[in-house]
């Protein structure tokens, strides 16, 4: 096929840019058309059957009554602090990093049980901040110290939000 309106440009002189056509056959098999139509029909039926529903929030689970700055602020702080990079996009854990769901029932890691027993109300705040003597001897397992990057109020907002996750 040629483009009719364009005059042919000068031939390439360099050996590496010569025109080397790939021969093609043009037939479109019937089965290809049939397969395409069939897959689209299946897709259409699947779409029509799954129109109702509701998306989950972009991270975490339901958060109807998070205290402090509210869930949106908490999510922004979590975004900024990069919690998802270790604890997963849903904060449901990944690899050896534990899930942050169920924080309201206490810590999930063995090494935090003692801290929980001694500070049942604010163990999570102490753990996240990471500078209190109560957490000084604990193996942080890669968990950063957030005392300098987050204010106590921000940590409180995040903890309140985490407590709303199922």
């Amino acid at each position, binding site marked *: *096929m*040629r*483009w009719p309106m*364009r005059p*042919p*440009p000068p031939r*390439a002189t*360099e*050996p*590496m*840019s*010569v*025109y*080397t*056509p*790939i*021969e*093609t*056959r*043009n037939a*479109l*098999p019937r089965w*290809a*058309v049939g*397969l*395409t139509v069939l*897959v*689209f029909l299946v*897709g259409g039926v699947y*779409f029509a059957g*799954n*129109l109702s*529903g*509701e*998306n989950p929030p*972009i991270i975490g689970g339901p958060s109807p009554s998070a205290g402090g700055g509210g869930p*949106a602020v908490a*999510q922004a702080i979590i*975004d*900024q602090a*990069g919690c998802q*990079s*270790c604890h*997963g996009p*849903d904060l*449901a*854990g*990944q*690899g*050896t*990093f*534990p*899930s942050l769901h169920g924080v309201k029932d206490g810590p*999930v*890691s063995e090494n935090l049980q003692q801290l929980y027993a001694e500070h049942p109300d604010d163990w999570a705040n102490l753990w996240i901040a990471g500078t209190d003597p109560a957490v000084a001897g604990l*193996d*942080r*397992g*890669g968990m*950063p110290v957030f005392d300098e990057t987050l204010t106590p109020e921000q940590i409180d907002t995040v903890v309140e939000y985490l407590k709303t996750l199922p």
Partner: protein
Amino acid sequence: MAVNPKKLRPYDEPPRGRRSLIPQAPDSGATAFLVVAALWLLVTAGLGAAWIGGLLFPAQLTFRFEIPLPIFGAFPIDISPGTDGAAFANALVYGWLSNAALGAILFITPRISGVRLVGERTAFLAMLAWNLAVAGGLSSVYMPRIAQVGRLAEFALPFDGLMLLGLLMVNVVFWRTVLAARRLPFVSIWFFGIALLAVMGFYALAAAATAGAQVISLDETLVALVVGFAARAIETYWVLGVALGTLYYVVPRATGNPLASAAMGMLAWLLWAGLSGISALGALVDTSVPFWVTMLGNVGTLLLVTPVFLSVATLALTIQGRWTLVLSAGTIAFAVVSMAFLLAASLLEAIGSLRTVQGLVRGTEWPLGAWLFGTLGTATFASFAIVDHAAPRLLRRDWRGSVLTDAQLWAGFAGATMTGMALMAAGLAHGSLLRQAASPDEITNTLRWFLIVAGGGMSLVALGSAALLGTLFLMYTTARKASYAVADATAAAAGH
């Protein structure tokens, strides 16, 4: 007057031509992109191994410290599994795959459009801009103060600008070449055209969103949704599109057979171009997005199986009669492995987009495993195929392969398969354990075994990448010089 060359003195010799700092010889851009790509693959595999190692031993492989800088003050550095993971994904997509893709585009376009690449210097400058940006961007991922948030959008803003400049330059070179073409372009060019425009557009969209979050305090959720949408679109339009375009070129070239059906190729192109954008809607998962929009995106992902299947069928029919080429490591073996991964990855993506499956694997390692099948599998092997085909022609060497090519094929294949399957299996196990309300310690202990296998796979990928570099080095230093200059009529037969 005849001159006796024996009597020539040194000052009689004609002056040697000066080499320009920015080369403009044919294929210098393509050569540079492909060689740099091979280096990036080794870096990528190293980052991948560091990431999985960090997930296994977080306490030992997490480093946080501050560098005192004269102007900025104490500058925090964060080397952790989180930043390693982000660096790995970006190095894979923007370092290895994008360099290989841009090299492939610059190699293939003049050969099937019939004109020399318009703007060889611009292409080389684009390579410099792109790789400076990727190197700087990857460094910035480890600097929490300047790194951005969002998948495949973590680079600091100045590096985004440099990357977009590189993409713009390649786009200009590509479109000027195509518009000067003598003939209606081959199907690969159609894939490359859409892919190049899409990657520039969607990368700019993500960069604008993250800049908006900083400058005018755009809503965080909106920014996260836009960045997620752009990342998915870059994967389908850019990573998948260039892989398809490359396979459509290398398979008929390396077999010497005509493309079995250009019409089927164009149908696949049309479906891919339409469905890739729709598929990206599936990344819009939030309460603020109507459910049917997300579901439409999931259906788009489901339907993407069609162009993939049509392409694989066309290419398989093209290989007909030359299947023995698969038995030795080389271009066709790489292409066939890529086609197998392509089929597997599209089916896995389709399964992962089903509502019931999403309920089980959302937030687990499954999507990552399926993603690695597409990137470390499909796109990586398509790039291996074009490098294997193009490198002797670009370096002008007579090269018949070596045991290193076998090592590259098998280590790469085993590595990508192990890593992808281990992470997908980890995702299924993770999802099941969450449903059974297993304790986090139990989940962690179970996942550890899958991560060990994934780490082994990543090490094999590193081995494969070292074999690729070794091949290029040996080809350039030990192989006999050869000219691949061919005349029009005999070019196809020569497998140029």
